[in-house]
């Protein structure tokens, strides 16, 4: 059973890869529908990544739009040296990090969806805390921690996306986690004071 399960997973992945290759080929030849499908499959992931890095949903949408446009303009030059996904995420992170540099003073810690949440209070607080924690990180740390924890990228995939050596990825992940633990310590202390 285990073997069957494994085989199926591998087979599915192969299928998904070949499907993406076909889409990529069609998109390069100017097929608009293929472009939409190729890019559209990463929309949710890119939006969540951008929102995590930029802090605001509306900025995230703009960033993903810009990412797509850059990707479309460069699609002809994409030779498949890396996976399309990591290539696209790299563009997205470049956009986000550029914007962070350009708009350094602007930092919104709250998420508009949090503000309009009608869910139970603990859930809202948890989200607000996570948004706040994320905002305390440097942009590049946000990027790597989100790629790893939210998107499940391996260290190697992050290295490919960020064009860093794997050692550096591990180091940045460590720093990000340490910073988050430190944020939590401060939060706990403030909570005690209150």
């Amino acid at each position, binding site marked *: 059973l285990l073997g069957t399960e494994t085989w199926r997973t591998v087979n599915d992945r192969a299928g998904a890869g070949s499907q993406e290759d076909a889409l990529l080929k069609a998109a390069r030849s100017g097929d608009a*529908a293929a472009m939409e499908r190729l*890019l559209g499959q990463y929309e*949710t992931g890119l939006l969540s990544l951008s929102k995590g890095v930029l802090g605001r949903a509306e900025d995230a949408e703009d960033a993903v739009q810009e990412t797509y*446009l850059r990707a479309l303009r460069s699609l002809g030059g994409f030779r498949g040296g890396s996976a399309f996904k990591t290539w696209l995420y790299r563009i997205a992170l470049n956009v986000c990090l550029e914007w962070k540099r350009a708009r350094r003073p602007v930092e919104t810690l709250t998420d508009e969806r949090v503000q309009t949440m009608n869910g139970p209070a603990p859930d809202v607080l948890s989200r607000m805390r*996570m948004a706040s*924690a994320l905002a305390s990180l440097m942009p590049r740390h946000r990027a790597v921690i989100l790629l*790893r924890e939210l998107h499940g990228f391996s260290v190697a995939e992050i290295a490919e996306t960020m064009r860093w050596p794997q050692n550096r990825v591990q180091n940045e992940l460590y720093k990000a*986690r340490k910073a988050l633990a430190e944020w939590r310590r401060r939060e706990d202390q403030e909570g005690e004071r209150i």
Partner: protein
Amino acid sequence: MSCQRISRLISQSQDRSLSVEEQRAVREHVASCEDCHRLSDTSAGLAAGFQYLAAGVPSKRLAERAVTRWTSEAASRQMGRPNRPAVWMGVAVAAAAAMTLFLVTRPTLREGRPPRGTATASLSPHGAKGLGANAPGGQNSIPRRPNHPAVPPLVHSLRSLHTPETGGHVHEAVPSAPNRPVGDMKYVNGDLAQFAQRWGRLTPDDTASLQRQGDKLVRRGDDFVLVPFPALASRDERSVRAAVAAYKQEKEVIDARLARKVTLGVKGMAFSDLCEQLSRDTGIELMAGKTTADDKVTIFCKEKPLRDVMRQVTRVFGFAWRRSGEAGSYRYELAQDLRSQLMEEEMRSKDRNEALIALDREMERYRKYLGLSPEEAKKRAESASPEEKELLEQYSGRGWGPANLYFNLAPEEMNALRSGERLSFSAWQVGGERAMPAELERGIIQSQSDVRVSGTADTGYRVRHVKEGGEGALPSAVPEARAKAALSMDRGEVGRFTLHGTSGIAVPGREGGRNSIDMGLPLGVGESPSVRSPKNASANAKLASDPSLKAKVNIKPQPSVKLERDPLVPPHPDESDRGENSGARATSADVMEAIHKASGMDVIADYYTKFYVPAEISCTGATLFAGLSQISDRMRTRWSKQEGWLQLRSTGFFNDRLQEVPTRLLRSWAAARKDKGHLGVDELIEMAQLADAQLDAAAAGLGARAQHGLVEWELVHNGNLRAYWRFMGSLSTGQRATLMSASGLSLDKLRPSIQERFVATVIPRTELAGMGWVDLSNATLKLEYQPPVVPASAPADAKYLARFTCVVGVGGRGRWLATVEPFRRSASQVP
């Protein structure tokens, strides 16, 4: 290991597997180091914590938008335009349109046409003049000019070619440019968004949303006539050029034959028949497609160009004419495209939702009484205001159980109720009944104060209503009595929901049986906006000063139908026949005829089978404006005046359409009846295949009987019988004959799928409810049908008109377990 080394290992443990030694070292260190413990704890919870970023991220179609933008940029680059990345979606359409125009016009530049700015007059293949404007130089010279009007050339090229000189028509929808020529298809086919806002009162947002849906669905189709321009921009150059050229050519066609004049006086005529008549009268081939053939229309007009009549049809109905064939012998087909169908579905859905909300509001009236027992409610009713008293009396009696159940329903039960399922509750839970909530048991039994229980536990109990001579103990005094109740949402008329509730008791009868009694009542009614008054006077306020509507008129429709009480349905014993469904009646077509006669104006209206008391839809000495508004309000129609025509549309047309029975079917059944003197089983089976909305509509039944003589309508209208007729529709001719023979049809001889259908659709409506496959093996089905020959020739011994029976037994020793006689009449009751 140092704290720093451990903390790195903690971080790495999230990304790779640590060795056994590393794991032990980390474990031991974390147990004693608060900072590392916090790091470990924090790191482990990050993946879950960040999920909020991904949760519920809605699709923004960003990829689609980006591709559209990129495509327009690419097109601009192709044409030598500088990129304008700052201009986004709003410009994309115009850019796409500009590109498509350019692609079409570019060949003419290559062919050495005169330079831009030189007006040219070219003769179309059909002899019409079109205005064109060409650009100077080659393809690169146009776009580089700043503020170059990219769109106008396209607009000019497509706004062809109706001019008075060519026998065409001025497009009245563009008042600022009255002489601007318009092609046939643009002229006769209206704008769907405007249609929805006029007749359906959809907001612009709704319309835009629907258009987006429609656009998305048809976007990738090959029929370029229907494809909007922005989508075309994403095609390759050659396809775009060909598509736009075809589109342009189609737009430019003028069919001079459409100027032929027609005079019409048709009342409630199906479009299939109207097209046939117009084809005969004008020699132009017109036909109604499947989506429109059965819709009915009333038109009164004198000497109008066929083109105008076609245009009015699209204005009122939201349909579109499609042209095919060759120049000089074009064919026209009236169709309702997908976008229009979606829009109608949206109207229906909104209407239904509003009716449900209204019903829920009605039910909220009971909420404040929920804590009261039946006795407490009855006591409170004694000192309540008249309005509250009525409600409290209802609540303290039969309504107590259903009202409390309604507010106790789980979401899935509420959904089931709204989708038409009857929800039955009892402590015994037989035949698909749900468990009765224990806290309601006592209250429901107490509320049955007009029921008496007689007998004993040993001999079995009997229950009877006091009005039927019931004697004995109150149900609350019989320990074995159990409560039962049910809720159902009746949608007899589309646009109106009635929540029915029943409550009663069940007691043990003889031989392990169960005797029960329950009675029902309507708890609340929810009406959708479509059945409310459309308030025409205020909706048409801007037309109040129209001189043509100020004339004093007398509108007196002549009734064309005489309704008679259904001979197959005796009056309810509790109600006197108030004559609501008998006497002379006018149809909406009669009203249109009266309006046409009184005003002399051309009139077009939809037609749905509805009957009005003539006095209620007449007016004397009122202005045409006031008369139209008053009569239209009473008929629940909206009226409007456009291009000299009076247009009327039912406020609930989207629902009415579902209820209307096609004329062709009514005619064929009426013909069969005329031949045989009655309707046979085959016709009844065919009639039962109509949709429930059609068979449930009271007006449809009245019309079928009064206008087509189909007195058997009740046999398919009856919900129990309908299931049998429909089941019989799945049998072969031979099987039907066997079913009607003395020996009957063995259920085992049917295909499994048909057996399943019988068990699923028929059995639940009978006393055999709850029986399954195994129980019904060896069952024999029979149909005995005695046509209700009206008035006097029914067989003297007829005890029923249609009786379905199901014999269930084993090895030939069957006994009649159930006889389903949902419709029983003695011969004397048939007039």
